[in-house]
């Protein structure tokens, strides 16, 4: 009599057998495909000893209100063991608007800190040793002026641009697909990324100017295979842009890092990351001729994943965070950050952020997850799944090129967006009809739930404070210098030369983000969103 067993098909479309065995690894070239950690193709990890030598970096996303409040939260996290910062900017800042702009009404300091000028950046990092603590700036459409502010601030503190370490997210193509903080049309937006990569290659060689994000596309509905495939299609395009500028691949491509999501099926996620490392090594070496192993190493933050967390039974999200952290650690991430348990409600309270930090710390200190590199290597299931994931990633990348005409066309015309939205719809249908199980949502529900979630308060006054502070900064400026610097931005935007030097000039005069962005909007125009459902 045959036993009845569940059908299991992963989100990526891969069917899962109940038992895997040695036969599933027959024909796998262990030396070539699995290999050694720290060696091509880096399936097992990009470093020889990984966490045995140094644990993953913990970098919780933080920022809200005024730069002073954000500075306090930074210090709170550092005091509690966080060893790197990831800066959250408010939506007006992300969209290149000053706090007083009518479009900023109601949004100042809400989802991140309000930055209008270099002065705000200086306050945000007061008494924080930016030469010792790595800072990641989650900024995209206006990455160029914000990076310029960061470099200018470092300069004022005696740190030469050539010595500045840190990262900027600066991945505009994913914004059009899954995050929405775009401003300019695709071409000039990508030009700006080219300018930042070129500038950093020549002037800030320790800085990582681009972090390509599969994360947000996954959050928007992409399945794990698509998350990597679309991110790699985007990264490939940025590399092509760099090469067109005359840069050598080994001079800049190794400082493109990645930002990936960690929610979903446990082993599918781990296999995703191992396959992603192997695939990136192949792309950089075989397609772009990279010779330096550093270029071939896929460096990532594997974090999140908000998409898996729920509004129902919020304490469950603490546990989900722990499971996702395990995924990330077993996948050999370089940096980790977790969405906090109040993710579905608000930006994190101190308490929620602390729980996330402790989750990661317990993993390192108590669980032995970092004692040996890639402990799941050789697993019949994991290796088999890794191979299958890689094959599907390659196929999906091919689809982008052959069916959609390449990532730039696909994004400009809304084809990726449509695919992702339809995936999201199918997923939601699955949750609503109960075929996809979510604890607390459609299984193990509590109809009468007491949700005791302290909400991070939004201080209404801080918008006024931001506006007042910027007015004070403006009152103290040399307006002749500001006007000249802004004229320089306009001239360079039109001429097509690298905008970073004129950005640096402008931010040093305390030109505002809004003043700079207005000029760019005037020259470049704004993106016409292709809404196709």
């Amino acid at each position, binding site marked *: 009599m045959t036993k009845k067993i569940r059908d299991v098909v992963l989100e990526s479309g891969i069917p899962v057998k109940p038992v895997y065995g040695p036969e599933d690894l027959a024909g796998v070239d262990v030396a070539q495909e699995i290999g050694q950690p720290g060696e091509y193709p880096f399936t097992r990890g990009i470093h020889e000893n990984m966490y045995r030598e140094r644990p993953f970096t913990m970098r919780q996303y933080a920022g809200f209100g005024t730069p002073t409040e954000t500075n306090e939260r930074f210090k709170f996290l550092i005091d509690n063991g966080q060893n790197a910062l990831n800066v959250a900017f408010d*939506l007006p800042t*992300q969209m290149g608007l000053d706090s007083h702009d009518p479009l900023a009404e*109601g949004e100042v300091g809400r989802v991140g800190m309000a930055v209008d000028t270099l002065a705000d950046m200086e306050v945000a990092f007061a008494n924080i040793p930016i030469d010792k603590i790595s800072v990641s700036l989650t900024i995209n459409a206006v990455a160029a002026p914000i990076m310029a502010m960061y470099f200018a601030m470092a300069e004022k503190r005696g740190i030469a641009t050539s010595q500045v370490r840190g990262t900027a997210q600066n991945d505009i193509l994913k914004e059009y697909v899954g995050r929405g*903080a775009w401003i300019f049309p695709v071409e000039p937006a990508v030009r700006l990324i080219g300018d930042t990569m070129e500038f950093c290659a020549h002037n800030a060689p320790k800085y990582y100017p681009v972090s390509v994000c599969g994360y947000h596309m996954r959050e928007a509905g992409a399945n794990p295979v698509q998350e990597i495939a679309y991110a790699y299609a985007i990264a490939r395009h940025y590399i092509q842009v760099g090469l067109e500028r005359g840069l050598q691949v080994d001079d800049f491509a190794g400082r493109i890092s990645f930002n990936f999501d960690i929610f979903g099926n446990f082993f599918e996620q781990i296999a995703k990351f191992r396959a992603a490392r192997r695939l990136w090594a192949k792309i950089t070496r075989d397609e772009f001729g990279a010779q330096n192993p550093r270029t071939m190493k896929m460096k990532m933050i594997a974090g999140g994943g908000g998409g898996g967390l729920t509004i129902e039974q919020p304490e469950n999200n603490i546990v989900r965070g722990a499971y996702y952290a395990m995924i990330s650690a077993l996948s050999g991430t370089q940096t980790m950050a977790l969405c906090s348990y109040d993710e579905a409600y608000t930006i994190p309270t101190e308490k929620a952020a602390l729980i996330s930090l402790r989750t990661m710390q317990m993993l390192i200190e108590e669980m032995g997850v970092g004692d040996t590199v890639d402990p799941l290597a050789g697993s019949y299931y994991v290796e088999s799944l890794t191979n299958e994931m890689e094959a599907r990633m390659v196929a999906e990348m091919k689809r982008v090129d052959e069916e959609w005409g390449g990532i730039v066309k696909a994004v400009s015309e809304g084809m990726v967006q449509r695919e992702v939205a339809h995936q999201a719809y199918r997923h939601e249908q699955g949750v609503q009809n109960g075929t996809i199980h979510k604890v607390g949502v459609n299984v193990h529900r509590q109809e009468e739930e007491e949700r005791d979630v302290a909400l991070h308060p939004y201080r209404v006054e801080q918008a006024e404070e931001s506006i007042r502070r910027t007015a004070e900064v403006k009152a103290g400026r040399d307006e002749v210098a500001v006007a000249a610097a802004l004229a320089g931005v306009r001239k360079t935007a039109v001429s097509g030369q690298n905008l970073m030097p004129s950005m640096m000039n402008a931010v040093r005069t305390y030109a505002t983000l809004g003043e700079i962005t207005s000029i760019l909007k005037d020259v470049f125009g704004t993106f016409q969103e292709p809404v196709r459902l």
Partner: protein
Amino acid sequence: MIQHKIRVLVAKPGLDGHDRGAKVVALALRNAGMEVIHTGLHQTVDQVVETGLQEDVDVIGLSILSGAHLPITKKLMARLKVEEMDDTAVLVGGNIPERDIPALQEMGVTAVFPTGSQFEEMVAVIEETVGSRTEV
């Protein structure tokens, strides 16, 4: 009698770029037989109302994930009043804390659909609201 197809505007007002929910709801309502127009991102309240007028919609659905739902909705309701669009029902969805629902209802919002709301419920509320408004 010709069955009037319910026209819904799914709008993303303000600067928030999270549109997964809005797109998913748009697809669900379309599959339920409604005519759905999606505004795209970064709409001002004026633009939303303008589009609602031009497209002659029965329902305006606001999707807000940034937490700015109270100021944005307040502005929209005031603008609808100025345009004398009393027949247009307003729904609000997104990251809406329970404690804000009464305030939204007081503003004249027909229903609030926080994350996790069911398609069936949205369709039922829309059909009931529009049905009762177009009854002669």
